[in-house]
């Protein structure tokens, strides 16, 4: 049975408390290795880091409000061939959802994996976060703590405590920011300057945590879900109004340079070899001339719409809304909106929620003989 608890640690320092807790997971042998976001460049950004020695956790920041990549792809790399090693992966909710989709696609394994989910307060664009840290005073640790404290305050009082820079568009419309299907959850919502953990009761003594419900956790979550859902619906409505015609859809992709950054960043773009990177759609030059002979003029590079529509067909059902496609896009195309809005329509039509459960099969990967 799972219980709510708080780690015993220095009051107020949530980063220290979380590192202490993660260190215990290693020391007590709950896991052999940890995959955790670690601050580098004096706290200006984080990178996912594979850690064995608890001593190396001194720069770990599981709550870092910046997500350069979705770690689901890294967990896939670390688990796909069923290793003996037990890995604990510190993941944001959207990363867990992507991981669950990868498991269903046979591209990640859960056998020796402990998913350590974290409450997500939202994330900033990598550039914005670095700038934010640069402009602050104090040690890297103090700055990191301050950023998180400001975000918690903003969530408690959204009208009077604005954020210093906007969140990534994916996070603004995200209404599932608490982990589902995590083995252990590190909680940030509710409570005053403390973190909570949610874990199997047999781990309570081993990890030295104190069983205790967090005040106002659910209330704080519900409030944010409501406001985010409202934003989400607004964004979707605007997109749907725009895409009543194909021209409106093309508007959203007008400056695409077809660099494939979105598909490289996407944790669930699942083909090992993408046929847009083969010569399937790169014919000999003469074909372009014959093509333009018919049309009169031809946009180069070609196949912008084909590329994005194909990706929508392949991944929109499993789209977890992490938005790393949009963050990776050098043109800043509204890819999160496109994939989340179309994904939402598709998921509702097929009654499928990505990352919700392991038993639910991806509709494209299955069929029922009775459905004709």
């Amino acid at each position, binding site marked *: 049975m799972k219980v709510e608890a708080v780690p015993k640690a220095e009051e107020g320092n949530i980063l220290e408390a979380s590192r202490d807790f993660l260190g215990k997971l290693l020391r007590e042998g709950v896991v052999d290795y940890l995959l955790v976001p670690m601050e580098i460049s004096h706290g200006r950004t984080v990178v996912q880091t594979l850690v064995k020695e608890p001593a190396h956790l001194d720069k770990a920041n599981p709550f870092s409000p910046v997500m350069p990549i979705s770690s689901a792809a890294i967990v896939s790399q670390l688990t796909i061939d069923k290793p003996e090693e037990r890995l604990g992966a510190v993941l944001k909710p959207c990363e867990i959802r992507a991981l669950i989709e990868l498991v269903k696609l046979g591209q990640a394994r859960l056998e020796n994996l402990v998913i350590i989910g974290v409450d997500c307060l939202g994330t*900033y*664009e990598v550039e*914005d976060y670095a700038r934010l840290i640069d402009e602050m005073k104090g040690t890297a640790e103090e700055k990191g703590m301050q950023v998180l404290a400001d975000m918690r305050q903003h969530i408690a009082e959204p009208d009077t405590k604005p954020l210093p*820079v*906007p*969140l*990534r*568009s994916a996070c603004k*419309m995200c209404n599932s920011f608490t982990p589902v299907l995590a083995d252990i959850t590190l909680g940030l919502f509710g409570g005053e300057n403390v973190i909570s953990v949610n874990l199997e009761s047999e781990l309570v003594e081993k990890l030295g945590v104190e069983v205790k419900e967090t005040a106002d956790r659910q209330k704080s979550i519900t409030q944010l879900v409501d406001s985010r859902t409202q*934003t989400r619906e*607004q*964004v979707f409505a*605007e*997109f*749907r109004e*725009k*895409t*009543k*015609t*194909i*021209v*409106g*859809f*093309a*508007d959203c992709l*007008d400056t695409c340079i077809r660099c494939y950054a979105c598909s490289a960043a996407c944790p669930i773009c699942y083909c090992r070899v993408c*046929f847009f990177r083969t010569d399937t*759609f790169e014919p000999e030059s003469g074909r372009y001339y014959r093509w333009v002979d018919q*049309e*009169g*003029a*031809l*946009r180069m590079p070609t196949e912008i*719409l*084909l590329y994005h*529509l*194909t990706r*929508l*067909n392949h991944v*929109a*059902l499993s789209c977890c809304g992490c938005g790393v496609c*949009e*963050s990776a*896009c050098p043109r*800043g*195309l*509204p890819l999160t*909106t496109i994939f989340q809005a*179309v994904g939402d*329509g*598709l998921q509702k*039509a*097929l009654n499928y929620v990505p990352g919700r459960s392991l038993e639910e099969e991806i*509709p*494209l990967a*299955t*069929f029922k*003989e009775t*459905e*004709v």
Partner: protein
Amino acid sequence: MTEFEPKIVAFLCNWCAYRGADLAGTSRFHYPPNLRVIRLMCSGSIDVVYVLKALLDGADGVLIGGCHPGNCHYQNGNYKAMRRVQVLKNVLRQVGIDEDRVWLRWIDASEGKLFSETVAQMVAELRAKGPGSMRTSWQLWQETAGCQLSGTEARSSK
């Protein structure tokens, strides 16, 4: 003015729909010559990228022909095709492309008559609809007006 003649790209499975087309021919059933047939081993082997490619490059309609459910030469390829087409049509609808330009039909090797009727019906419906919206993609890119959707401020600060 001559009547608009739709161009249809037809993906037909080797075992049923393609043989249905063959039978239509040997049985001298007439059907309009608007079809460009691409033979596949199975309707389940089609990736939506090829359907999209046809539509985006100016086909007015795409016909996918497979075996009746339960009759697939490879057990269940047609069920897989069905799911893919269901997803495809949903996506098309959401991005402003007429989903009714894509037809998925089960046509048996013995159903030459059904094949010719299906094609005739599809051509008639596409004639009524007029040319597909993608007939000239260059024109489409000239009509685009750029995009400012709300919620993308963080990106524009880059």
